[in-house]
């Protein structure tokens, strides 16, 4: 018993353009994930190996290098999610929609 959905899925499976789009989107998503992981574990390892460097004051004040760096990690998480959402909304959604419509 095959439903219409199953038939559509089978056609999509054979569509090279679908696979190309998914590959591009996956590369983007995994790339951003790797970047987030690198930023976070970079920060953690920095704390573990060079705490003095993070504890060094900026200029003549008491604010240390670690404070903007830590806040920077928080901001980077938000910026990266924003980048992903923007690209997915502006580009990927429309492309995948077109491929599905064509396969219908």
């Amino acid at each position, binding site marked *: 018993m095959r439903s219409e*959905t*199953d038939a*559509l*899925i*089978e056609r*999509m*499976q054979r569509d090279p353009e*679908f696979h190309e789009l*998914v590959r591009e*989107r996956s590369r983007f*998503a*995994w790339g*951003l*994930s790797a970047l*987030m*992981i690198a*930023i*976070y*574990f970079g*920060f*953690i*390892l920095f*704390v*573990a*190996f060079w*705490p*003095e460097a*993070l*504890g060094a*004051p900026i200029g003549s*004040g*008491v*604010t*240390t290098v*670690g*404070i903007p760096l*830590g*806040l920077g*990690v*928080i*901001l980077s*998480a*938000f910026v*990266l*999610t*924003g980048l*992903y*959402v923007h690209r*997915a*909304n502006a580009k990927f*959604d429309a492309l*995948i*929609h077109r491929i*599905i419509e064509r396969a219908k």
Partner: protein
Amino acid sequence: MCPIPLAAWGGGALALGAFVDVAHAAGPIEGADAQALNVEAVVMFLVFVAATLAITKWAANRTRSAADFYAAGGNVTGFQNGLAIAGDYMSAASFLGISGLVFSSGFDGLIYSVGWLVGWPIVLFLIAERLRNLGRYTFADVAAFRLAARPIRTLSAVGTLAVVAFYLIAQMVGAGKLIELLFGLPYLYAEILVGGLMVTYVAFGGMVATTWVQIIKACLLLCGATFLAAMVLIHFDFSTEALFQRATEVHPEGLSIMAPGKLVTDPISAVSLGLALMFGTAGLPHILMRFFTVRDAKAARKSVYFATGFIGYFYILTFIIGFGAITLLMNDPSYFKSGEGGSYDKISGLIGGTNMAAVHLSKAIGGSLFLGFISAVAFATILAVVAGLTLAGASAVSHDLYANAFANDRVSEHTEVRLSKIAAVAIGIVAIILGYVFEKQNVAFMVGLAFAVAASCNFPVLLMSVFWGGMTTRGALAGGFLGLGSAIVMVVLSPAVWVTTFGFQSALFPYDNPALFSMSLAFSSIYIFSKLNRSPHADAERALFDAQFVRSETGIGAAGATAH
């Protein structure tokens, strides 16, 4: 206004979701220091309870189908869900625990805030949309999509219930201590009150009521924290340098609060903790469940974006609040237990323990009215988190274990939802009992354990089921159960439990967080056991992946969704 005397409870740390290290650094909330009854706090709390009960009644009338009960009918918008996720995730530990950690050790608090946020981008990039496209009510829907339903749903339900139990114990004990301290209500009554309210929200109002409790809580918490942080900054003419300058003058540890301290000592512990925080977030069942409340993958994506923004903003506020508490509280003896000759310890002497720094700061800034508001917010914060946990646990029992694993889908929707409500009541009763039993225990390790289990059992199975077509039922079971078991065993043998809780001389496992080892074990077991599985059945499972992949990447055939 009568202070109710309370029994001292030596050594019991307030968990409130705090990790082992947070609890060690930030210290407990001590029940012995109960405050006089704060009338403003009680009134504001009652207003909150009345409002949430009214919402529950409204939600109960709208909750008819299973989709309504588990997923709010899929009618939550991306923005609303972002707020609700933030409300589900920002526990009192984030608020009181991190600001308390900043109060006691400065910069170290920021290291924790960062860890608690960075899991969100990963959830967005890899999990959220695919989860929405493949599942209906629980993450087990996704894990069991092409694998054998009964064993995989059992595994997911065990993983869910383990996370829920550990998280819930920490929250219940923390809630009891906090209410005892803020409202002067005896511990057992506080447990019954929290347990009773969370069961009422979930059993009568299902996901609709739970969502709105979380949204209201998120708004209250964000407003309260914004006001606190803004008042601190106004005090210093919006100069953070002036704030830090003053803090280093007042704090007994001086300039060293501006640098990494004792929190991160060796790289292995640091990385292991980092892994648990980052990937545990992507395996928390009550969080994953929230993605089924929105219409489609696009709305799921949007909800993580908003949630990341709210949670990140909130952690920046807690950092300012912690430093504000240093500058505004440490020179005022009225916030401390005084010793001989009026001297006091500027950190451990804080009344109620360092986790109360934000609460005391609210009084210093806005008097007893604002103290009442922040106390009520802290309580609302706990209620929203435990309601989310209860719903996730109840869904695992009714949807995964009963309806799909053992009754083979021959259950009517009505029966399934009724069973879920009964499960919610049972979870509430168990939570009250556990909260009571663990009152005098140090439960600070429980949330760490919940994150470790989520990262080592739920997350690997979910991630591999979505991305790796080679995974078989046997591989998922081996990896999931080994990850779960090893995480629990290593935590029990760790310094935090084996030495601190059980009182043995030395720990059998040297690190407090097992994630580095238990996650490696889980992923490698999934890979090896799947590869070694050459049965025809396994081949059939692998053959189903391509169709699943199309569904997960496009949303074709997704439950309740309109096609993209």
